């Protein structure tokens, strides 16, 4: 069983804080001249999906590798958080 709660009361201040963090991150990247980094470009594009619904899923889909077949050999290093198309 679940009782209803007000999501704005629960999460607005947290989301507001995170939104300002995102804004500050973008300013920081701009000042450091890294706006051509593919991860930043994908990040900016991902902001566009926030206008629709199912936003969390859409953002995750946006950053995902869209290919379907296994690759020949595992690449070195950790995942980067955004898919880099060649």
């Amino acid at each position, binding site marked *: *069983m*679940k*009782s*209803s*709660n007000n999501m704005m009361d*629960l*999460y607005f201040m947290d989301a507001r804080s995170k939104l300002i963090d995102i804004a500050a991150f973008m300013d920081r990247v701009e000042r450091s001249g890294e706006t051509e980094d593919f991860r930043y470009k994908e990040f900016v594009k991902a902001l566009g999906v926030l206008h629709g619904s*199912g936003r*969390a*899923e859409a953002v*995750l*889909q946006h*950053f*995902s*590798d*869209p*290919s*379907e077949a*296994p*690759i*020949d*050999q*595992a*690449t070195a290093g*950790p*995942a*980067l*958080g*955004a*898919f880099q198309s060649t």
Partner: protein
Amino acid sequence: MRYIEPHAHMVSRTMDDYQALAMAGCRAVCEPAFWAGFDRSSVAGFYDYFCQLTEYEPKRAAKYHIAHFSWICINPKEAEDPAFAREVIQLIPQFLHKENVLGVGEIGLNKNSKNEAAIFQEQVQLALDHDQLILIHTPHLEDKLKGTKLTIDMLRQFPQLDPGRVMIDHVEEHTIQQVLDAGFWAGITLYPESKCTPPRAVDMLERFGDTNRLWMNSACDWGVSDPLALPKAILELRKRGFDEAAIDRFVYQNPLKFIQQSGVIWEW
């Protein structure tokens, strides 16, 4: 509140963490075999690790009255050398019938390579041959969506596989639906950055919790992770209005139902 931590890499944690888990209400931890942060140089290294998981770690947990269960496998990150991986796989059967072993895991894909896929399928067959439960790791970040699809496709190649005996872990909003629709269990991992926060986990429980094929875990290890992530998710569930019976189902009864299928004996 009682809960089961169904995915924690306790060999990477201190006794302080066991104490904190016990004080938070943790009754049992389940520890999958995983990558140590570096590639092991020999098969003997895996043998020692499997002994650690099945003999030494349960004793550490018992000092805080926490039951310790483990999963045995070669992880996907060290599966890129198939000859080496197959030598490790030969070691596994002797550990599968230890009293604290739940099954084969966490197997799966890491970078979605052909070698990873081959070793994954061989370990699925191993689990079937030995009537074991299966715990599956899904890849990180940009590789997760593709890896989850490939994993489900490969599992469908085993017609004798009961999806109710397979847990596919580390789901997020873009993968949970396909895992549950295929009849598998789904694990939600609570990580500070790279996987899921407690509010997002509760969002998914609101949407899919009625399937009763979900669990949450911290997957705490040697990286940035939080062994108390699950108690924090319990607080989040309370904030969102879930009653104690529903929370108990999410954090105790559901994981219990899954791991009991292994046949391990524990004073539940």
